[in-house]
């Protein structure tokens, strides 16, 4: 069961007193996100932007009603923060942190999936329900409330594409960053299932990149009828060379697998048009929705 956010979601920020945590707490509050508490071990009793800080998640839970968590804790300590959020029953848990070891992610994701909790990330810009709740680090200015759902493995590329979708007047419903790591809590299929049932979403954009086979599996899922709304895709990394990591830990072609070509072919075979340039995504959407 995948769970995202809306205007009612009450949020905890873990790692709230760090540079990033502080900065984005301010921006999320400005957006209207209902941040009710923060946690940084050893900093209990302080406050950030008027938000009370606790030493432990348990203490924050005692004093507030909280639904979801967003984590800005440095990589070596982030897994413990995830377990703390899981123990407290928070859902979803957004893990912004970049650079978490794959084995750590493997373990907390396994635990979360077993208990039916949604983990977004790691190494994600987060999730935004446009106009209601921003649980992430994305710049608010590129989004406008509308009908297109966005699922992406990348941050700035999502903003680039969302900006075009907003400016041609379609706008976005919910945008989800899966994360740039090899293993993430959610994949395209998990989110496609959610968008299929989301009445506010009329079409979906998949923004993929080289590495792994998540796009190919999503294409198969769409081809088999698992997702029936219009979909458009963009895949980054046509020029990438095998064996080199392109910035994201997960963006690497290993052997013959994970190339842009294989992803583009799979999506097109499933009837999903793939844009050549970021700008063309919005145009393709407009054609499909007109």
């Amino acid at each position, binding site marked *: 069961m995948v769970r995202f956010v809306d205007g009612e979601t009450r949020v905890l920020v873990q790692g709230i007193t760090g540079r990033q945590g502080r900065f984005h707490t301010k921006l999320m509050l400005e957006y209207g996100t209902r941040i009710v508490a923060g946690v940084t071990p050893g900093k209990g009793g302080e406050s950030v932007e008027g938000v009370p800080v606790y030493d432990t998640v348990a203490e924050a839970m005692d004093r507030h009603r909280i639904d979801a968590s967003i984590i800005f804790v440095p990589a070596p300590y982030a897994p413990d923060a995830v377990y703390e959020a899981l123990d407290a029953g928070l859902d979803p848990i957004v893990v912004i942190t970049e650079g978490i070891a794959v084995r750590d992610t493997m373990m907390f994701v396994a635990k979360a999936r077993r208990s039916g909790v949604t983990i977004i990330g790691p190494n994600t810009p987060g999730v935004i329900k446009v106009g209601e709740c921003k649980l992430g680090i994305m710049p608010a200015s590129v989004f406008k409330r509308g009908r297109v759902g966005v699922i992406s493995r*990348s941050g*700035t590329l999502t903003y680039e594409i969302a900006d075009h979708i907003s400016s041609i007047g379609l706008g976005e419903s919910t945008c989800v960053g899966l994360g740039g790591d090899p293993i993430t809590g959610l994949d395209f299929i998990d989110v496609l299932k959610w968008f299929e049932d989301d009445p506010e979403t009329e079409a979906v954009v998949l923004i993929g990149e080289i590495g792994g086979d998540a796009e190919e599996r999503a294409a198969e899922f769409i081809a088999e009828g698992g997702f029936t709304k219009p979909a458009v895709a963009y895949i980054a990394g046509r020029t990438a060379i095998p064996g080199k990591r392109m*910035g994201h830990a997960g963006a690497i072609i290993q052997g013959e697998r994970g190339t842009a070509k294989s992803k583009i072919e799979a999506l097109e075979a499933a009837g999903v048009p793939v844009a050549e*340039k970021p700008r063309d995504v919005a145009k393709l959407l407009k054609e499909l929705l007109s």
Partner: protein
Amino acid sequence: MRLLEWQAKEIFREYGIPLPRGRVAKTPEEARNIAEEISGPVAVKAQIPVGGRGKAGGIRFAETPEEAWKVAGELLGSFVRGVEVKMVLVEEKLSIERELYLGVVVDRSSRAYTALATSEGGVEIEEVAARSPEKIIRMTIDPLEELRPHRARWMVKQIGLEGRRMLSAADILVKLYRLAVEMDAELTEINPLAVTPDGLMAADARLNIDDNALWRHRDLLERFGESELLDLTEREREARRLGLTYVELDGEIGIIGNGAGLTMATLDTVQLYGGRPANFLDLGGGAPAERVEVAVSFLLSDPRVRAIFINILGGITRCDEVARGIIAARERIGVDKPMVVRMIGTREEEGRRLLEEAGIHCLDSMEEAAERVVSLLGGD
């Protein structure tokens, strides 16, 4: 991070995985001494961080210490698959009856380690997967559990092992899995796992460690020396020293972007318009002017780079900081190359004003900017 064979084997040895006798040599004389200690035929193997070295002549055999001296001399300093050989591993030559394969890899779709085994050892696993996928036995290991010996026995039985050899291979697989977990392996392989009259032996060893877990393995970096472990070009090494996220490509248009996805899309778009990117360089989020200056200077001083395309979508990255960095780099390096800047987002106006004053024009659209930079170099 990909370890060399001899480094991986040192770690395999600590886990009790059976290995041929041998040591690494940097000179032909050392190779001869090791061959003397082994006192029998030896294999002399080039230590390079790329696969397929056997076919490329990177593995040679020698009957005597003198011959080992000779072939080591031929391999050392030569280039195998484009990589200079700085060390050779000198090992007892095995008499191999059969070659098998055991591996443990991070499987992205099942979000877990997967153990792999096949009777078709000695060739790359990708090749087996393409040719006869039914011969690869796979088993996903629950991250919250462990690899139980009975499941390892079930696996190796599928690849045709019986009796003591089955027990021995299962034991090796359990050890390999424990090694994968404890060493944060992205991938670890024994290929081939040699069936010899003296039992099973890891004739080759591969271990790629997750870069994000290196903080847990500082001792390893000290032991083997970080620079030797990194499969990077000269320029990539320099970029790494400067703290840049950089990948070298073979074109002539230098590219800088913010965010991995956007930077990759920038490369793709440039290529779509017929340009050839010289690199991938991701500034990351919130780059201050100093980091931008380092990045731009790095490309200005690269003689391969004939024009530069900077593509910024400012969220937490501020356009005015980027502009200041670009201008500072031009002043510092004193080389002027054609530059196309696309910059939108946070503090866009201030950034543009600074650049216009320095004579650099800014564009709104990355597609237009890509087209522009390609046309600047057009005609040859």
